[in-house]
């Protein structure tokens, strides 16, 4: 194992050195397409070899190193391809240009973030999830309503709800309120359906046990139904975080004040200022991953007893 690790480390160092050389070359070399393609292939092959070496090492190192190395390789290939083939930045800006755009426009990006994420997406997410869970608690008490609402909810959850955006923009105006409304509509049904499914997940045996204990409906909910619904609820919440971002951004394509991430993307695309578009997309992607990670972390804290969490070790 140690030998393998050392070989992996060696190849990583080699790889890094080669990158520097190639990077210098890329700046100076005459732009010959065949040479450029060869350089790209060479980097790809080397990086893949390094990754292969890493993948044979200790599982814990490989689990971190492989995806990171792969991501870095893609970034590098992207940068090299743009530079070597002289791709104009109105088609595909280089990663360095995107980084520069992020650094130069931090205040704008932050204002957009506040408008779209903190006001629109987060506000709508909170309202929509609360409403979804609340409705589910009411619905789950009646078998009749459950049988009626579940198919309808499942149906609605599969529809292109984003199409309600123009209607809601018309009702609530161009501000963040209409975006929050779109998010509420998008988030409500997945959360409702998942929570209702979760609340009815407890087994008849467990419910009977609660009855023999003389538990009130409130106690049954508190100690049996809610905990057993949590894995389902978190599944719904995770779907909802992604949907909330999509809803808040896409709703701005239908009308917004002069700030917001959707507004930024659509106007800067119109001005062919692609680095700024990519900068906004980077912010959106980071936000998506982080918020998903937060919900997943909360899930691990609250549903540590569930098999799906224990399997991960």
């Amino acid at each position, binding site marked *: 194992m140690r030998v393998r690790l050392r070989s992996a480390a060696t190849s990583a160092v080699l790889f890094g050195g080669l990158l520097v050389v190639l990077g210098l070359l890329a700046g100076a070399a005459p732009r010959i397409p065949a040479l450029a393609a060869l350089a790209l292939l060479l980097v790809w092959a080397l990086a893949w070899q390094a990754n292969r070496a890493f993948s044979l090492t200790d599982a814990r190192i490989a689990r971190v190193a492989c995806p990171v190395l792969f991501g870095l390789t893609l970034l590098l290939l992207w940068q090299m391809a743009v530079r070597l083939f002289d791709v104009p930045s109105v088609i595909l800006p280089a990663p360095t240009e995107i980084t520069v755009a992020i650094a130069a426009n931090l205040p704008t990006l932050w204002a957009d973030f506040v408008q779209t994420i903190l006001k629109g997406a987060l506000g709508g997410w909170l309202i929509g999830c609360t409403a979804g869970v609340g409705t589910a608690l009411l619905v789950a008490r009646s078998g009749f309503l459950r049988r009626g609402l579940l198919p309808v909810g499942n149906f609605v959850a599969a529809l292109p709800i984003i199409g309600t955006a123009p*209607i809601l*923009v018309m009702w609530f105006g161009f501000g963040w309120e209409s975006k929050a409304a779109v998010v509420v509509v998008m988030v409500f049904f997945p959360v409702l359906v998942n929570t209702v499914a979760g609340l009815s997940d407890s087994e008849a045996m467990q419910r009977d046990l609660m009855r023999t204990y003389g538990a009130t409906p409130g106690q049954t909910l508190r100690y049996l139904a809610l905990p057993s619904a949590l894995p389902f609820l978190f599944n719904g919440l995770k779907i909802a975080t992604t949907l909330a971002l999509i809803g808040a951004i896409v709703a701005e394509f239908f009308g917004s004040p002069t700030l917001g991430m959707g507004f930024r993307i*659509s106007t800067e695309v119109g001005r062919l200022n692609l680095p700024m578009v990519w900068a906004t997309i980077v912010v959106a992607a980071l936000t998506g991953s982080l918020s998903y990670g937060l919900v997943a972390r909360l899930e691990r804290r609250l549903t540590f007893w569930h098999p799906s969490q224990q399997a991960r070790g």
Partner: protein
Amino acid sequence: MTDAPLSAPGAGIGRSGRVAHLSRHARATVGPVLLVVAALVALWYLACIPMNAQNAVLLAEREDIAVTPATAAERRDMGGLALTFANPAVATARAFAQERPRLPAPHQVLTELWNTTVGVAPTSKRSLLHHARITLVPTLIGFALGSLAGIALAIGIVHSRVMDLSVMPWAIASQTIPILAIAPMIIVVMNSIGVQGVLPKATISAYLSFFPVTVGMVKGLRAPAPSDLDLMRTWNAGPARTLLSLRLPASIPYLFASLKIAVAAALVGAIVGELPTGAVAGLGARLLAGSYYGQTVQIWSALFAAAVVAAALVAAIAALERLTLRRMGLAR
């Protein structure tokens, strides 16, 4: 439930067990579903009254009917509900047939749907069928390409440890980011290098359906139990044989589950892809044009058309799923 259990002696007399099962299942869900839908429609009609009250009162004033806050200036800051309670008769009578209501009544939307599908020739620019087709073609092309690519990548991931370790985390992470946000960029960039029409929209659809299928298929191809995989090994089956005879069949339920998600995502992608080109044609263009010109009935009918298309696509895949699983003996 007065019906005898399916397994009871004589339960199937008079009708086959399957029919009994179906009818009992139907009674258990159709009634509640119909009631819920009816309740929603009733709520919708009720909501129309306060939503359209402002406009209704204005219309009544033009017909020289006395309304309670007599001037428009007084009415402007009143809520819809307050206005309804101030003029109940006027608001109710004029809530359901306005030209540009804030909330069109269900029958107005249905009439518009009927007029723009059956009422005009399918090739006409006013026909929703025409617009639905324009949206559907890139959806299906993108869905097919994205799903095939997703399956291919999943096969690669399952067979190569390097790919699993390096690609899989990114595939999972990509599901947490709002990919739809890049749709306008793809359209405009492809437009600037001269690619127009179906292809840019199909690219977005393919991109959106790619990741769910990849993640679902990786799960599916890993679904066979270790004992089954060991059995294949004792038969000296190579990776290709194991893939064809064990992994692929075992992954079919997972495949269909992710295809349903993917096709819905592909449709949303195609609709959003129609927005930045400035509302030329397609369901997304109808939505945008409707919101430009305040044609609420048109927006709602386009929304319903999109819903019908989405439901039809998901239902088609569900039917295919049932058929396949029954053929394979996997149906429950």
